[in-house]
């Protein structure tokens, strides 16, 4: 909202659209924040507050309110509105990465050996980072974090699409139809993809002689 031009542009839109947007933001705030935390470069973790990234994305959304999908209160309209908003957050995050890590991008590129990720903001590294957690006192947690470390290594072996499906479902907490919309596939296909990704992950874990998960 700091750009005065943007404000005048959006002021001419009906007030109801902006109210709709505000409501949408409130509804999905938690999950979008999750997404930012999950996909934000860990080198920025201490420097940037995910809330600020979200704030910036909301300003962006407000500026582009004329593209805000119609009828966001019905079911399919609500879905596309969320997908639209999520896309804006994703683009904002890419901008933020460019701005803060521009000079270091080559370093990042050297570390990342995977093929081009399905999402502009890589998934597998985020998963790996998330999974290598600190060991806490209760031993179950210790066991769990070893499992997770192993899981991280195995996840990286999955195809990009498989990784993305699992990340969207579990890390961003998207529903099946939201995953379908983000990936541009049918809900049935998304459903099959998800089960397949889980099975593939299980297979790879078994192959690598991992800990038993049962």
């Amino acid at each position, binding site marked *: 909202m700091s750009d005065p031009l943007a404000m005048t542009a959006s002021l001419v839109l009906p007030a109801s659209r902006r109210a709709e947007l505000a409501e949408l933001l409130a509804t999905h705030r938690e999950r979008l924040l999750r997404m930012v*935390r*999950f*996909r*934000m*470069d860990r080198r920025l*973790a*201490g420097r940037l507050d995910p809330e600020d990234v979200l704030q910036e994305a909301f300003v962006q959304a407000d500026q582009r309110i004329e593209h805000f999908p119609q009828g966001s209160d019905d079911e399919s309209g609500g879905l596309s509105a969320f997908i639209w908003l999520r896309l804006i957050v994703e683009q904002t995050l*890419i901008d933020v*990465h460019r701005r803060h*890590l521009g000079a270091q991008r080559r370093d*990042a*590129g050297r570390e*990342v050996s995977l093929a081009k990720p399905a999402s*502009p*903001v*890589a998934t597998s*590294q*985020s998963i*790996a*980072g*998330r*999974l*290598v957690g*600190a*060991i*806490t*006192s*209760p*031993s*179950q*947690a*210790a*066991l*769990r*974090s*070893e499992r*997770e*470390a192993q*899981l*991280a*290594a195995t996840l*990286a072996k999955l195809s990009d699409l498989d990784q993305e499906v*699992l990340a969207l*479902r*579990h890390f961003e907490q998207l*529903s*099946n139809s939201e995953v379908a919309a983000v990936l541009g596939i049918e*809900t*049935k296909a998304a*459903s*099959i993809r*998800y*089960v397949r990704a*889980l099975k593939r*992950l*299980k297979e790879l*874990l078994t192959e*690598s002689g991992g800990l038993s*998960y*049962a």
Partner: protein
Amino acid sequence: MREPLELLADEFVTERRRGASISVEAYADAHPDLADEIRELFPLIDTLESASTHDEQAAPLATFKRPERLGDIEIVRELGRGGMGIVYEGVQSKLGRKVAVKVLPQQTLFDQRRLERFEREARTAGSLTHPHIVPIYSVGHAEGLHYLVMPLVEGVGLDHLLTAVAEGATEVRIASGLPLAVPAHNSAEYWKLAAQLALGAAEALAAAHQHGTLHRDIKPANLLVDRHGAAWVTDFGLAKAMQGDDLSRSGELVGTLRYMAPEQFRGECTPQSDLYALGLTLFEVLTLRPAFPQEQPSEAIRAITQQSVPAPRSINPAIPRDWETLVLKLAAREPQDRYASAELLVADLRRMIAGEAIQARPLRPMERGARWAKRNPLVAGLGFALVLVSVAAVMVTAALLRPPPIEQLAPPSPGGESDFAEPRLRPPLGPPGRGPGPWRGPPNQRPRNGPRQGRPPGELPPRPPQPV
């Protein structure tokens, strides 16, 4: 049409996020046609879900800013942090008393049911009053934080103290900044301090067990040593209180892995499990290294459940024989081979301190054999003869080696045996190339979010996402 398994997974995850108590088995039972896939994939889903919330749990602790005050407590400074939260020194303004405030990691008590259980457990454990137990004054929450208020013990964690001993330090700073003299390892004063600490902890356990409370997480970090060399057992029952809802089929597993008794991996926790953990703690006091130094949880579990604790004197020959017998009895793999109660341990420690013969023997063959046969009538017939032969051998050995009382055994501190033993006492800090080994520094110096030590080959270090 969505995949039936995907629909169930969706339901499972939704319930899990709501904090409902759900089990993989219940799902498998309710859907027999998909049971195999459920048993195979749902635990994986569980791990994915817990991983996705890890960061939210860990991050606030790492970047957590010290609160100015909590309720009526003014926070003075941070004393340390660990898996169970951050400990601050505070002043309760109304009463003008110094307190220790333990702030729990956020999100661990995310649902009402767990919170209530935690408060209940903390109150039960906190109601223990004993000269060697750190009581809990109150449980509170303010500004979204949950915390425990305890008296401030002017002392230092035993883990910290042992690190100082291993480094050959002559003193260590305690909470108030005052120095606490550290006796040299293997000196007469050292064994005296060890006995005093062991006795205090054993008395605390005896009192708690009488009260029907188990500690479940005895370890060096949970034994505080005050300026008079007295032991204070802290975090009574907290492991249980902090335990999450168990989702998998595995039994109850609470406590710190390295000190957990073998039976705890089968879901049994008894007073003998606390005695075992105290035995492993004392093992470290004697040898300055953990009985099971494995760094990978799975390796540690394998070692604990399949191997016996090594004889302390094989690591440090300067250890008095009675000490070794006592620790091996505490750390016996079978619970019934340990002391039958903490009181009996107290009695033996008193004998040891008084220079009398302790009652513990390397083995109690007949009793053990008989008990075992009762439990395993079928196998007993086959194995009993063999057991008899080996216990007979041990009995003879025990009789021959029956050690004199501790006083006579205390090694001359400078020179002689202890000099000889010296090079073996400082183990290399962990396996080569593995970074800091078994001796962790004081808890507040441990990295929380950094890459874990001893990463196995093939495990990915955390990597940043690729900006495009």
